[in-house]
């Protein structure tokens, strides 16, 4: 549990990487839809150079484990697995929704946060979060996928909302949430937030072997069997 924490996220249209040690943080963030695979390793080389450190000084890998675009989530997990295997360091998979929520909590820790990512097909990924002085950013209930008009929400008076799921379905959210005190529908998860969320878990010894760091897709029914299609 020493050295630098390398963090990466490719779960949405953005690609970001960060290096964190104590108060020092270096980050690269790009909106690069379809170019995340091309950019992620070169961006890590860039932050390593900026921080003036070498790979052997990395002590753990944090990664946005989803939910988000299936391919993007897998890309991040695969890169994290490959690096962690090579360096023999643990992985800390972090929710991309929690990373978004942390952005709002950083601005106002008294709000209840709805973090939501557009899941296409008329649905969103969503999770509600609150800040707790003892445990930090805490999930209330479960992360889930569903239509914006019916995903379960926490009970709250004062809302902050963040993520592309907000801007995709304003008409479904507004009857449920009203006018939030903070709203940003154009924000993507960032590796620096993922690193912040990961570091305390790392310190508590919650890093895991890379083969156990797996994507959280939330949407798990992705195809119909022949029986379900009525062809057998």
């Amino acid at each position, binding site marked *: 549990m020493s050295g630098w924490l390398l963090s990466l996220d490719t779960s949405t249209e953005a690609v970001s990487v960060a290096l964190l040690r104590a108060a020092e943080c270096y980050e690269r963030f790009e909106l690069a839809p379809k170019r995340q695979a091309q950019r*992620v390793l070169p961006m890590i080389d860039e932050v390593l150079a900026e921080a003036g450190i070498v790979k052997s000084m990395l002590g753990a890998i944090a990664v946005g484990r989803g939910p988000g675009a299936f391919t993007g989530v*897998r890309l991040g997990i695969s890169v994290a*697995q490959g690096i962690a295997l090579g360096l023999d360091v643990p992985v800390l998979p972090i929710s991309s929704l929690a990373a978004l929520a942390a952005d709002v909590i950083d601005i106002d820790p008294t709000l209840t946060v709805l973090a939501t990512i557009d899941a296409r097909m008329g649905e969103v990924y969503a999770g509600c979060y609150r800040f707790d002085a003892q445990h930090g950013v805490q999930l209330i209930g479960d992360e889930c996928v569903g239509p914006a008009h019916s995903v379960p929400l926490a009970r709250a008076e004062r809302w902050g909302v963040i993520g592309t799921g907000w801007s995709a379905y304003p008409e479904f959210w507004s009857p449920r949430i009203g006018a939030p005190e903070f709203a940003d529908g154009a924000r993507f998860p960032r590796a620096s937030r993922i690193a912040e969320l990961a570091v305390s878990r790392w310190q508590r010894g919650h890093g895991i072997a890379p083969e156990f760091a797996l994507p959280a897709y939330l949407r798990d029914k992705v195809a119909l069997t022949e029986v379900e299609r009525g062809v057998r």
Partner: protein
Amino acid sequence: MRVLGIESSCDETGVAVYDTAAGLLAHRVYSQIELHQDYGGVVPELASRDHVRKLLPLLRETLTAAGLGVRDLDGVAYTSGPGLVGALLVGAATARALAWSLDLPAIGVHHMEGHLLAPLLEPDAPQPPFVALLVSGGHTQLIAVRGIGEYELIGDTLDDAAGEAFDKTAKMLGLPYPGGPELARLAESGTPGRFRFARPMCDRPGLDFSFSGLKTQVLLAWEKSDRSDQTRADIARGFEQAVTETLATKCRRALAETGMRALVVAGGVGANLRLRAALHTAAVNDGFNVAFPRPEFCTDNGAMIAFAGALRLAAGQRQDTSIAVRPRWPLEELLATTPAEPLTLR
């Protein structure tokens, strides 16, 4: 040079370590066949999800079997295409990131070059020049291999691949997925000669194939028949005979036209016993050598990727740190990237 090879282009996860001095050190394959069975075919998203679950455990198992740690590797090769984009990306990203973390060279390998060179993993393998028959669910190609890395496509299918024809025909006959091997098994109890189907494209010159018409002939025969179990087996036998004889005819032609004296067979259909028998007979009659990879290297595997990757890495080829896959990647386009000097292990 010890090269790790990773294959994840479709529904098999393959990992192997090939040593340019000592040969193949270990290889493991995990097949997803059962996962896709209920869906009647490979579901790309499910395939990708399974690769990401299985790749690292398989990688560790392979290294353990080889008695190696990741630090004993000298290079990493992975299938970069053609194949299912999401599936390819899992292998490519893991492999490229692993190589990056260890400061090792990495190389993306053309899946079909892997198949093409798989017979060379065997002892007493023929050396180029030879004609290769690549015959799988996605390909039916004849390739003149003048040297390693020097390939000329001389025959291709105009419609269905042979393996695809096997699978589709099996489905028409009501056989469970994956139908091809099932159909071949059923054909063994069929009466030879009861059903005779045309040998497509054999009555005209050229090295191209076409199997979609044969499929239609089989469908008509099946619909007109009594649909008994024996008839199903007899039709399967007739179908298999038509396919294997067609493949053998074109192979003989390819050898005659190129003047080459050796044939290697690769790809999943290369495991078909009747095809092997037909080609052995042709080899004896015409006086050429025929080589098959062992059946486990006919289907997708990491060994062929480690081997083809080792050749390219030894020739100094490298993939930069961008993670790139090419779901559609004609073998002809690989030729353009091939160095002027043929690749060798020495």
